[in-house]
């Protein structure tokens, strides 16, 4: 109670509200720019925090994280380009809704779900840091491997029409993930002596290339008037009935997001793909998924926004960053001489309370900011096609260039774009490829780490109950998907005969 009063008093005695809103807006803009990941938008803010007091600095960074995770969904829905890794799953139904002229509704749903997810995550952070942090310790390399396999098993539901093409795309993604420094031995692989490839190919560049560049290339081949839709998409929050319908997928998303946030290295991407998959499984209208289902937007968005708060749990309780963004936040803490860990809660109560309060302010402000920013975004994407395409090209490529200030990255995006164009042409789905790039390193490095531990004995996976559980679920997913595929093929054959 005393803490609560102190927290409330911080609202009026410190510039907390202004800082939180500034961080949020910066985050949304960073997240919405394709190529600028949440961690980069936070890192860009870091120099500004040097002169701030510790509490404001941390609030600024944490709220930028919240904003960025939300912002990533805006281009995912409007221009079929996820602004962040974790928004990749939002593309599926978000962009489909926009194509059906329901873009405003999709934006409203993602905003609302982001709000719910963030609030849920914040509640977990405030109330359950202690027990949840113990859970983070239960994960061993074997468990991470199994988690990655579970993530990959979702490919079936992302493959669209052909499971085979989906699997092929996923393998392509996994191959890209092997480029760079070997995670266990440190040997360079497929780097061809180029230092730029030592760190591997960033998933975000692959996504920007596959989605945005290939989309722009496709558009350049179509007469402008043929695809110009003149409908006005007004941004609106979901109605009560819709809110009710979204509830289930948001709960699924928030719970999965909570757990993923705890696991270092997993991050929001697996969370949003898994949530999408689960929301589809438990939905009353699974057939709508992939064809513009509101739940298909709500689940991943609730989930990646939950991660933005729960990723702070291992950071604050152990000083172990759960994601790149959390690592930047750790840097922010260290620069201000704050050492994360149990003592932070005792010695710097004010900073922690400020962080909670600032996050709360930012999440509430997110609804308002979204409603103000979104119409502008919608107006932008409704400009005549040629201008829009040119603008997006400039935006995307300059965004990518800013990250490391190197043309090499721009080259990667363009090559990925060519691949995307070819994949589109031959009907290969993008998302399995993205999943492969994102999860490849997690699966590979933890598999090999487990084997180094065991001396090459695969039985080590059976000793870890978490791994066994995940692997069983993964096998079930794959079997169910195969059975479904086989059934629909059988039905199709029957139809042809009849």
């Amino acid at each position: 109670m005393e803490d609560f009063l102190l927290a409330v008093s911080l609202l009026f005695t410190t510039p907390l509200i202004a800082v939180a809103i500034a961080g949020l807006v910066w985050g949304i803009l960073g997240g919405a720019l394709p190529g600028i990941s949440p961690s980069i938008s936070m890192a860009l803010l870091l120099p500004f925090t040097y002169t701030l007091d510790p509490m404001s600095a941390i609030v600024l960074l944490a709220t930028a994280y919240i904003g960025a995770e939300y912002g990533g969904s805006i281009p995912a829905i409007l221009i079929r380009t996820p602004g962040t890794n974790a928004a990749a799953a939002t593309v599926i139904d978000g962009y489909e809704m926009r194509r059906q002229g329901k873009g405003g509704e999709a934006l409203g749903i993602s905003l609302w779900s982001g709000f719910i997810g963030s609030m849920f995550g914040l509640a977990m952070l405030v109330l359950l840091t202690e027990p949840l942090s113990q859970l983070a310790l239960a994960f061993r390399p074997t468990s991470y491997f199994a988690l990655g396999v579970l993530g990959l098993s979702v490919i079936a539901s992302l493959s669209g029409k052909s499971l085979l093409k989906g699997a092929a795309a996923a393998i392509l993604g996994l191959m890209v993930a092997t480029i760079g420094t070997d995670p266990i031995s440190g040997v360079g692989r497929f780097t061809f002596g180029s230092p730029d490839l030592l760190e591997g190919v960033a998933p975000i560049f692959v996504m920007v290339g596959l989605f945005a560049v290939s989309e722009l290339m496709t558009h350049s081949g179509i007469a402008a008037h043929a695809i110009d839709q003149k409908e006005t998409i007004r941004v609106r929050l979901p109605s009560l009935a819709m809110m009710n319908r979204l509830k289930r997928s948001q709960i699924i998303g928030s719970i999965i997001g909570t757990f993923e946030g705890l696991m270092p290295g997993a991050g929001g991407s697996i969370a949003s793909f898994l949530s999408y998959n689960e929301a589809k499984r438990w939905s009353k209208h699974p057939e709508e998924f992939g064809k513009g289902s509101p739940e298909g937007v709500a689940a991943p968005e609730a989930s990646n926004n939950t991660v933005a708060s729960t990723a702070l749990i291992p950071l604050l309780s152990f000083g172990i960053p759960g994601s790149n963004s959390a690592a930047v936040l750790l840097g922010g803490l260290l620069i201000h001489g704050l050492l994360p860990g149990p003592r932070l809660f005792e010695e710097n109560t004010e900073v922690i309370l400020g962080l909670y309060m600032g996050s709360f302010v930012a999440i509430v402000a997110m609804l308002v900011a979204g409603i103000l920013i979104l119409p502008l975004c919608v107006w932008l994407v409704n400009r005549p096609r040629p201008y829009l395409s040119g603008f997006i090209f400039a935006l995307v490529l300059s965004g990518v260039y800013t990250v490391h200030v190197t043309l090499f990255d721009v080259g990667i995006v363009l090559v990925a774009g060519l691949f995307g164009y070819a994949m589109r042409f031959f009907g290969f789905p993008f998302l399995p490829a993205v999943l492969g790039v994102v999860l490849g390193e997690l699966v590979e490095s933890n598999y090999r780490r487990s084997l180094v531990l065991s001396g090459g004995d695969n039985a080590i996976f059976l000793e870890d109950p978490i791994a066994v559980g995940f692997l069983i679920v993964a096998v079930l997913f794959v079997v169910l998907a195969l059975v479904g595929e086989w059934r629909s093929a059988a039905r199709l054959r029957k139809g042809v005969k009849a």
Partner: protein
Amino acid sequence: MLASPPHGTTGRTQNDMRISRAFFGAAAFLAAAFGSGLTLAADTPLAYPHRVVTLVTHSSPGGGSDVFLRDLVRHLRKHIDATFIVENVSGGSGTRALARVANASPDGSVLYATTPTYILTSLLSQAENSYDDLEPLVNFFTDSEIVYTRADGPFMTLRDVIDHARAGRGRWGAANPASLERQAAEQLKRAAWVDAAVVSHEGGGDLMINVLNGTLDIGVGEIGETRAQLEAGQIRILAVFNPHRMAAFPDVPTVQEYGYDVVMEKFRGLAGPKGLPPEIIAIWNEAAQRLLADPEYVASYEAENLFANFQSHDDYAPFIAEFAGDTEGFLRETGVIP
């Protein structure tokens, strides 16, 4: 300064004389003995031919070298009359930062924060610029590399860990595949003649979790990365790879004391483009010693468990060359590079 050159020049000469006399002995001792004289000298920053000096690091904001530089800069202003800017050049695994410095003009206006990473990166990549294109300037610190285990685990000393590995198979962890920590663990394993899996991770956080949950017997890491767990009493330090015991932990023996001839020094210093002029080198040799004796800075770096280890340019260059030779040998033996 520009308005009255004669006056300024004489003032500087006097200061220089006083400082060089003051630094003949141990800086720390003199700080106490001639407190007042030193304060006067330290109050007047050394003149520098550049108004703005850029300190480049491969580390992203908040990373190890970034934090080191920013803290350094905060105190350096009192000792060198210039404005220092920290520039984070990320990407290419650190090679881009190397290239940025190697191709800058060698006049002391652009310097680089050295750590073993710049040697490792040069050896691992076939980048155009390597550590050989930089000239080591001065060293400031040794970062302590320690062996740690979970506090509620069965290992009380490094001897227990070695015995365990001898009886069966040890499970040891290091933060990154191509790192000083892995090198330390591999060399310890060889020196002790035991079988242990040396598991590399993707950073210190990953490693810490696996030590805390008992997947690994021990972890080898920088003491700075373990501070949170150390203060919370979750881990125990078993040994340190430094040549001497740490001041803050006098009870922790060195690995050498256990009878294994393995010493690791994670150095932190500065380097510049090849061909730095002697007057720049002289200024830094002096400023570095002044800085390391500055009581405010001492308080700040001791809290980080950094071990002041001043090396002048004349010592630093051979040290780096030897270090690079050892590291290259290690990378070849472990098959990381052909």
